[in-house]
């Protein structure tokens, strides 16, 4: 019994008390369904399937090391968020 108590105490200390949430209701279901329809689709995020370097200088350093050319795309605005 003492061993079981110590085990349970250890589990709580290790993992922390589980967070409690209010049960989802019709409002939550409706709001979440509306939100899901707006989120970017996988097709719309294909830009993220490319491994973009953080800067021209970084890209050139990697390009020289791997003996690969650099694909540089210049643009206006914020292409990552679509506000461009």
């Amino acid at each position, binding site marked *: 019994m003492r061993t079981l108590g110590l085990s349970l105490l250890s589990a709580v200390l290790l993992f922390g008390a589980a967070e409690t949430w209010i049960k989802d209701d019709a409002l939550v279901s409706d709001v979440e369904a509306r939100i899901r329809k707006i*989120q970017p689709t996988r097709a719309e995020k294909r830009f993220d399937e490319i491994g*973009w370097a953080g800067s021209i200088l970084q890209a050139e350093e990697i390009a020289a090391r791997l003996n690969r050319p650099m*694909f540089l795309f210049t643009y206006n605005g*914020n292409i990552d968020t679509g506000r461009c």
Partner: protein
Amino acid sequence: MINSYFVPVTSRNEEADDPKGNAPPEEKKERRRIYLEFYEKKLGIGDVHVYIVAPDRSAVASMGVVQAADPAKLTPFLEEVVAKLHLKPAPPAIKPHPTSRPPSGLASDSLVVHLVSRALIGGSWHEFPSENWIVLSAAEWNQLLPPPDGAKEPWTLPAPVARKLAEWVYPQNEEKTGVNRSRIELADFRLTPTAKEGTLVRAKIAGKIRLWHSFYPGGQNERNAQDIAASELTGYLDFDTTSRRIQRLRVVTTKGDYHGNTPFATSLVSMSRETLEALYAPTNSR
């Protein structure tokens, strides 16, 4: 193909080409050098443009965005470069990662809200949704909560935080800076408690927003009748009345119209710590 044969990189004109841009001087200098070499070698230049630069930093070939946006044109262009430079395919030089992310280095008690806004009709500017990352400081997100002991009665969000949530609620249009230029006429968010379990409360959100936002930058000093983004919103806020901690903030439009002819939808979703950490997982280069 871009991952397999090239080292891809983007360069924002406002950062790296503008003298007032905040890119480091060395970055700006190298960007300028590339541009001038392509110009001198008559290989093509442009503001929104693809430049192929060899590993020794010499100019190879370029393509304007109108053509580059067409796979039927970009693919043979890249294949020609691959053949010319005798390239071999390899894994990506840099691990692909989300490019739309909140600012880094945030205070640990910030609340980050991810906004997505999209036009609901097709056409130019409507191909992709827009995103924003709204960061609320502890002082700001505390304004979302009712006064202590006030979680039984409806309340309204104070103007400063209401405006911060409202100012990006419009679909994609032309933007060059990350600075919001909307003129808010109405940002009304009313919260009504609807559920309680122990110390946890859920409040329904009903919102109305009306703001002026010119489609193109530079028009913000005018108030053209068509530049109105009007929306009605619903949502909920789950919070703990004892710890005064927000568990979930969700807001979404039920109606949205821009310019009188562009229906749109916008969502605002608070991010958990786990999601934020995943967005900034390491992206090591080879």
